[in-house]
């Protein structure tokens, strides 16, 4: 297609509305954040330039910040493995069960729709021991359910008070997060599965390929692009988790479930906008490095 000079202008006008909004509401604040991250906590008389001080503090002194990044990373690890595996298995099941698939599609997507506040309140109520009542009644509803099902001896230690035990708190938060989030992965993976033509499976079946062979030879390779998309969305979503953890543990006990965005938010509330900006930039940098590295890697794998 040949394009005239005048056409360039017309073509460009198509993205103009998006570009104007984007520059005003994203680029401008971003540049502001960038400059703010070199200023001190003082709001006084404009802003006080402190050079690299904020970044130096983040990188050399602020152990809590890196702990929080590690916590988010840990939750992301669970989300990448457990959550996405669950999503994939469910998508595979529903892909086959065509008749009832519609119902599951609706049900599995209810959790992503509900707000974090509800989910947080729900699990906090269910996982915390009931307080201030005499001995046999004071265990948490989930623990009670586990006991009633006869699973107490195996799962009892985990479920006795998972959100407040420093050893289990982060895992418990991660599991709730996975449970809330798998709906997204499920829907996207299911969509991907449905684009794979049935004939391919038929042909493989005639060739005598088993269930697992069919999965690894046909489904997985064809699904790869979708899986990559899901993984990137998972990383971006989980590293920025905030509201759910606020509702579940407020970052406690003793900061064992604190994540970066909670720290940034708290620093903002404490009027430390320079430091919070620097933290935001560092987090953004981490995310961009991780996701671009991953994209590059997946591209390389695809080529070979």
């Amino acid at each position: 297609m040949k394009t005239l000079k005048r056409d360039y202008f017309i073509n460009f006008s198509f993205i103009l509305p998006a570009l104007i909004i984007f520059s005003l509401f994203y680029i401008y604040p971003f540049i502001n954040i960038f400059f703010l991250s070199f200023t001190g906590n003082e709001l006084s008389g404009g802003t006080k330039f402190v050079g690299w001080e904020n970044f130096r503090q983040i990188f050399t002194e602020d152990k809590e910040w890196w702990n929080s990044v590690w916590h988010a990373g840990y939750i992301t690890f669970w989300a990448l493995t457990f959550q996405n595996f669950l999503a994939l298995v469910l998508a595979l099941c529903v892909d086959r069960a065509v008749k009832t698939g519609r119902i599951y599609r609706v049900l599995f997507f209810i959790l992503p729709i509900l707000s974090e506040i509800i989910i947080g309140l729900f699990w906090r109520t269910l996982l915390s021991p009931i307080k201030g009542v005499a001995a046999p009644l004071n265990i948490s509803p989930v623990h009670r359910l586990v006991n009633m099902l006869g699973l107490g001896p195996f799962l009892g230690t985990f479920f006795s008070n998972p959100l407040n035990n420093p050893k289990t708190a982060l895992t418990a938060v991660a599991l709730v997060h996975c449970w809330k989030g798998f709906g997204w992965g499920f829907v996207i993976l299911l969509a991907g599965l449905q684009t794979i033509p049935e004939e391919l499976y038929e042909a493989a079946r005639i060739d005598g390929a088993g269930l697992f062979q069919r999965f690894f030879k046909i489904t997985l390779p064809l699904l790869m692009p979708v899986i990559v998309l899901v993984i990137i969305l998972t990383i971006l979503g989980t590293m920025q988790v905030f509201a759910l953890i606020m509702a579940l543990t407020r970052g406690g006990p003793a900061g064992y479930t604190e994540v970066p965005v909670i720290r940034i938010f708290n620093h903002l509330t404490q009027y430390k906008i320079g430091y919070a900006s620097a933290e935001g930039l560092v987090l953004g940098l981490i995310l961009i490095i991780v996701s671009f590295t991953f994209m590059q890697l997946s591209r390389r794998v695809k080529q070979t």
Partner: protein
Amino acid sequence: MRRGNYGYFLLVLLIFNLFFLSCSSQNKNQVLIWHWMTDRNQAFQKLAKEYEKETGVKVRFEIFFPPNVYAQKVQAAAQAGTLPDIFGILGEKEYLASFVRRNLVVDFSPYFEEKPAWKESFISQALEVSSFSKDNIYRVKAGIYGIPIDFMNIQFLYNKELFKKAGLDPNYPPRNFAEFIAQAKLLHQKLGVEGFICGWGETWLMYSLALDFAFNIMGEKKVLDTFRGKYSYNSPGWVKVFSLFRQMKEAGIIPEGILTMANKEAEEIFANQRAAFSFNGSWCVNVYQKLNPQLNYAPCLIPEVSSAYPRKIWGGAGASFMVNAHSPRKEAAVKFLEWLTQKKQQDFLIRVTNNLPAIKEAPDNLGLVLKEFRKGIDYVTHPNLWPVYEKPKVIEKFTQQLQKVILGEITPAEAAAAVEKVKLRIIKKD
């Protein structure tokens, strides 16, 4: 309708609406107030109407919630120069200081000079929370920058009903720490209720209790010297503070979930008679009143740990209002605050919101519990009243180490050492 037409219709609607929506209402002749206090919003609205009837001046209260978002809103408005006529500043005194440095808030000193009686009417600590003395460490111009509208202090609370049930005398709260532990343990074991409850997920509540203990153990001078860097966190006094919390845990009187508990959860548990003791501010009277009007409880001073130094409790103005220094309605705003802090209005606020008044004059209609709370005035202290302040980084470390002590992960001595390490690093940098 065809799809194309439908889309076109949407587009027209959208453009039309955008123009329509962009107009912003701003009334030039009314005093605008931003606040975050959900418990007294209704009362404020009534007072605003009352004031307009009396003086003809329009006043509008706007509430924004939750408080942490409100704080960011005020910060953003300060940055952009769109603060309302009257607003509150949440958080540490340093934030107020930064507003003073930028000349954003009115100094009330000239008004008080004109009307000494107005200044005299306040409980002094309530006023001091937002004043700066000469040569203050915040290095801002001396003055009084906030008008307190109520007074609060944080004390121990005990449930009289449960005391009776367990065979204890409901009129004798624990006098010292050992007695407190023993009573809480007894109540816990006999009745199955929690011995002690508090919203320590909000770490400042834990910190304020720790400081109460510290004042009692070491006295004000040593505590403040610690902040100045002249006295070590490693000293036995501070280690003792940490160990008190460990003792509470070991006695089994604090529940597992206390470290992630929001204060409202703790309030609910105490209101429903499921905990014997609590540590909470005088604002709780209103909360308990709503949750369980039959609750029979009373405040008491913190149990004495040592007799070497007087006990202190955390307290001051519960909420203060600042006036925007650049507002054209500055005078009207100050006048309104003066009206708001008169006895009649204060009495009305007490009646509706169950808070302690900011003024000295004894109110007519104070409930029994509030009367007890009011006795705490003589013991009140507050970080905003001290000539020095601890760095937020150190406080963060302190509360974190305190939690680890409660969890039993580290010993009190280790906790103190870790805090001291951070403190030394910060001193070195300054």
